[in-house]
């Protein structure tokens, strides 16, 4: 006997039947979608969706545009413009969040290095980043790592390569977006990814206890009946 045969098996029919018994309100679904569109900054989509679903937004849709312009500026490497926009929108944010300010300055340094402006980058690091690091020693480690970009030629294998990766711009943009959302009591992250993570985790937990139709692809969301594959893999061909 295989280990899997010791587990309870739930058929696809039974699973689907039980799923259908769980009530999900359409309004809740709409809220989730709206939440995602707003936090991720899809203003036009959010407005259209609000109109078509009849959902009254509890969030200022007008602010999405401003946030997205700031986000695009960071994603395009124009940190100075992003900082100016943030200061126009809410000048308290960067004065009261030294870590965020540091990360924006760090990104600006990275952009200068990426553009080959070594001298300007060095001056920028001395004038802007070093004083900040002195006041906030817990940021010095990151500062050291960033300064190393000036000292070493960075190749793909280098541990510093991640700083020059465009993914780093996205990371900085996300951090800034989250701070802007939090400043107005909006959630920092959308709820949909968390729900999908919960789904994946729950399935992992269930896998140890029962055979059931699981979703392997969250995009297609097709329920794949389990037990069939397991049975085929374990059976011995009979003459």
């Amino acid at each position, binding site marked *: 006997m295989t280990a899997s045969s010791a587990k309870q098996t739930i058929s696809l029919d039974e699973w689907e039947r039980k799923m259908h018994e769980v009530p999900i309100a359409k309004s809740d679904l709409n809220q989730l979608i709206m939440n995602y569109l707003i936090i991720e900054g899809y203003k036009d989509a959010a407005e259209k969706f609000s109109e078509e679903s009849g959902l009254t937004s509890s969030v*200022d849709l007008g602010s999405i545009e401003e946030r997205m312009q700031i986000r695009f500026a960071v994603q395009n490497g124009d940190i100075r413009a992003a900082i100016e926009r943030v200061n126009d929108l809410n000048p308290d944010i960067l004065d009261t969040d030294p870590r965020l300010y540091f990360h924006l300055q760090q990104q600006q340094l990275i952009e200068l290095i990426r553009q080959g402006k070594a001298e300007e980058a060095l001056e920028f690091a001395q004038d802007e980043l070093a004083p900040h690091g002195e006041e906030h020693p817990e940021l010095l480690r990151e500062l050291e790592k960033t300064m190393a970009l000036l000292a070493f030629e960075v190749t793909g294998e280098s541990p510093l390569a991640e700083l020059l990766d465009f993914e780093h711009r996205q990371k900085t943009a996300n951090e800034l977006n989250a701070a802007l959302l939090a400043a107005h009591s909006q959630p920092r992250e959308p709820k949909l990814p968390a729900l999908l993570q919960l789904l994946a985790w729950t399935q992992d937990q269930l896998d140890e206890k029962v055979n059931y139709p699981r979703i392997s692809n969250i995009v297609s969301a097709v329920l794949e009946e389990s037990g069939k594959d397991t049975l085929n893999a374990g059976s011995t061909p009979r003459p």
Partner: protein
Amino acid sequence: MAMATTQQQPVQHIQQLQSTNPVEVYSALRTIKNAIIGSNAKKTLYYQLQIIPHVSSLLALDDTDVQIRVQATTIVSSLAHKGEDVAQQLVDGGVMEALIGQVMPGTDAALMEASERALNALLGYKAIRMGAEEHTHTMVPYLLSIITEAKESSRMFEMRMHARVELAVLILEKLCVTEARQFTVANTGAMDLLAPLLQRGYPRLQVATLRAFAALSYENMEISRALATVAHDGRVFPQLVAELARHSDADVRLHACLCLANLSRMRALGDARAVLSVAVPALAKLLRGSDVPRLQVIEALGYLCHEDAEIQMAAKNAGAVSDLVAILAEIESQDGADFVDHARNVQETRAVFLALGTIVSAGEECRMRAVESHAMAHLVRALGHSDDGVKAAACLCTQYIVRSVPICRTHVPESGLLRPLLALVRSSVTSVQEKATAALINLLPDFSPLRADALKEGVVDVLARLVESEHVTIRRNALWGLRNLLVGADDDTRRQIIAHVSVARLSTLAQTGDKAVREQAAGVLQNVTAENEVGAQAVFDALGAPQIVELLRTLLASEDSAVTVHALYLTNNIAVRERSLCELIVGDRGLLQTIMDYARSPVSEAAIGALWCINSIASHRADSDSDDSSEPRFLAELEAQNVQSMLETLLSDPGLCLGVRDRVKSCLDYFSSPDM
């Protein structure tokens, strides 16, 4: 050349501010604004280039363009974040008046918001809040009008409105810095106006509102009690706040706990459950997390536990004691490390010892938990810390932990506590010396194994010098230490103390000066003369008969009951030893009458003291004190004062407390002797 240009730019920007071209002025302001926001270095640079007079004068001019005002105001707001000295210079430059003018109705919305941010930043410093008295009455109605408008508004989600309401509440919170201003705000109906904001579902606004309530109720019993009855949506304030103490947002939880702590401290909560089962566990959990500044949590916990044994116990049960000690271990492991905010670690260390001291102040179990968590090692290390605040806090914590007799006997001797503590007793820093002497007091009683070591280390000499300190608390503590040393002391120690401090000096200290010092000095005199005749004889030899009688008369006439009780026992100690000394007391009819009066005192401690005196006087025999068959020596004097009759009247009182009753009966035994 590039370097020179970079350095010249800020100077050029400042010069541009004086341009007659508003576009240039606006551009310069915007550039400066974007340079200084977030950067203390740039704030310093522009501060040194005299930015403050420029922005102050721009704001002072009536015809300054609105857009320019917005930029200048934002610069003010950002500069205010630099520090108190810069903020004060801004205020001295007259920006407050300009800002208040800019928040009045009818002003451009962006300018109003910028002005509120600037006011909020400036009022972040206590000195400026205190100095804002003249502006309070102007600002409060305006702030309340913003809140009123927003209270029922469906537009609350709009970013600008949301920000303005939050800022209005935060400014209101900052204005409540004195009791008078708390009442000014409370009397406007602010509490009922703010309550609904607790349920608007916007965490930042909820935090601001909780902060405002905390500021309103802080150390104010009347407002706290009124707040406990404020209701919204069918629930009273404590219930609303208790719910928020379970909120998913850590900041909301922390500030809700602070509100509950305020109400608890003012005894405004009828039911302690909200504190015991909600606030204490919430704070203990926040202590283990990293979502809110740990320093605030530690301070909140200490504040909540102050002088409440039940809450202290709840904190211990929630794991707070071991968690606080774990924080100390974590900070110590970072000593000397790079990339660590050591200044913050010092603040947290100080706060931990203060909070820990508070939690262990009343209960044996809490103290044992601290010791079991290895707090002693951290305490000893902290006594040698470079920061005076840490040393003082560690002394306070030591003082409370060693209140425990078992801990004093078992854990303290091996801890190595004494030498560093004595070093702090000799410290030149008053705050440290005060706390160190207070801790030392608890190590000197007769049951303490450290007493002998302390004597060897010259503690008598140290305390005797501190009796002459210019600081009252240190004098008091030194005398208290000597008083403790005298209990169960051998004759050598007794003589040593008398030699170092002198009876004459003790007599002076007991009769003049600060009440706390007089009490302790009287206590030292009592203990000097206790146990055997050495001390009583020394007092007689030093003062002589007339001065002893005068001393006793003065002390017994004190309005301070603690002094009179010590005086009664001093009288007893003098009376009980030698007949010749007893004669001094009996020979003074006024003194005897005073003793009689105290015997009838409703204060049982005084009555018992007086009855001991009578007992001691009556115990002397005519021939020999050891011969019970001979007559009481001072019977006639006692009869002349109708002592027996007084005692019998006392005994007939059914309400007489047990301790007094026992003493009365013992005294009456002398009068009912067949020898009489």
